[in-house]
């Protein structure tokens, strides 16, 4: 993967705007290669914006923001083809079949059709579904197909927003397995989840986001830095 020792994600006082609103209001975060990091926090905390900023989709207007060695403040397009983003949307064409969708996104990212088929198998998408139009799938099945498109491109950095959402128990296990596998081969995973028990069992560490800033980073706790969140635990865990 990456030959340098620089963190995969290195943010210092990073500010990102949604319109005029500072969705990220000075984020400090380091994520090392091979780490699986959970982002938690209340709705509107800035988790999705943080993931999208790391993908180069939301501009970071001030501060330091380096992802996979690319300076996002100067040029946020360079990092895009090296990350895999699973957002709230599935990024699929409704009228194309499952296999046509995965094939298109695989080839668009430089992978092969065979990579796409292998990813569908890995995600447990039954072969009887491959030729069905995506619009006929359930939400959970769409989610699996979307994840297959991400897996096929073998990203160096996985950015997953609620990856367990809409999936059945087997699907959630597959997602957990994928995150662990990705980390084992040196990729890095940053994911947001409200399913704390499951998510914390997969994550190497947890970062709490609230009000557009990092409130708690448990890597700081490991190093003896006192926890000082401005919100109470009740507020933070009062999610969805």
């Amino acid at each position: 993967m990456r030959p340098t020792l620089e963190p995969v994600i290195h943010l210092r006082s990073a500010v990102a705007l949604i319109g005029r609103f500072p969705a990220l209001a000075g984020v400090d975060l380091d994520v090392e290669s091979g780490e699986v990091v959970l982002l938690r926090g209340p709705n509107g905390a800035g988790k999705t914006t943080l993931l999208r900023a790391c993908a180069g989709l939301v501009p970071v207007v001030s501060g330091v923001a380096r992802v996979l060695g690319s300076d996002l403040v100067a040029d946020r397009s360079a990092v895009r083809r090296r990350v895999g983003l699973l957002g709230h949307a599935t990024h699929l064409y409704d009228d194309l079949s499952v296999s046509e969708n995965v094939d298109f996104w695989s080839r668009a990212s430089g992978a092969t059709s065979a990579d796409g088929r292998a990813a569908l198998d890995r995600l447990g998408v039954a072969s009887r579904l491959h030729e069905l139009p995506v619009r006929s799938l359930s939400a959970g099945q769409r989610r699996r197909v979307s994840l297959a498109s991400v897996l096929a491109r073998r990203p160096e950095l996985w950015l997953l927003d609620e990856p367990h959402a809409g999936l059945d128990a087997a699907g959630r296990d597959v997602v957990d397995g994928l995150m662990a596998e990705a980390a084992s081969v040196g990729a890095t995973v940053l994911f947001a989840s409200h399913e704390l028990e499951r998510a914390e069992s997969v994550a190497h560490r947890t970062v709490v986001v609230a009000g557009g800033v990092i409130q708690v980073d448990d890597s700081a706790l490991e190093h003896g830095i006192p926890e000082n969140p401005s919100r109470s635990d009740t507020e933070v865990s009062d999610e969805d």
Partner: protein
Amino acid sequence: MRTEGVRGVVADAALVAGKDLRLERRSKVGLSQVLPFALLVILLFAFALDPDRRVLGAATPGLYWMVVLFSAVLAVQRSFGVEGEDDVLDALRLSGLSAPGIFLGKVAALMVQLLALEFVLAIAVAVFYGTEISGILLLAGVTTTATVGIAAAGGTYGGLVARIRGRDTLLPLLLLPLLAPVLISATRGTEVALGRDAGPGWPWVGLLGIFGAVYLTLGALLFRPLLEDA
């Protein structure tokens, strides 16, 4: 691994064009909505002007290209509408596809659809208006170059309005005035091809070619910032 440079752009364009044509084949929006709309307008013009066949005959080239332009707006809306659904534009930005490749692919797919539509409309005009189609070579030149211009301008402005609220009404407002030179040149060229005008026809083809080349170049250059702001 992705191919870089011009070959990469061509490969990306082929991938996007293939995807767009497959989408059209699956959804049949062009066949079940755009084509019937175009045929209906052709038919309505025939009803409206039928009492005076002379007027209908004289107006045929202009009516034909007006219908093509209206149908093109629908085709462009559909082409970029699918990219706006389910945040697909984000996925396009995250993919390794080059912006000029995406633009040229979408233009190529639009061209194929428009050429098919124009062929069917020409038959309809021949049947409903009693038009004798002659000057095939000039007609082919006019049709091809006009279609390049319409698709290239449509691709550029389709990208511009892809994520804007109210894009369905904004697109015709932006695109139709811009396509006025295409309408005029294509109509004049078609009049010459059909023998309604004795003047030279190929200069109109040249003018349409210049328009198409300008918008192909502009679109390929501007599509990256358009994709960013979409």
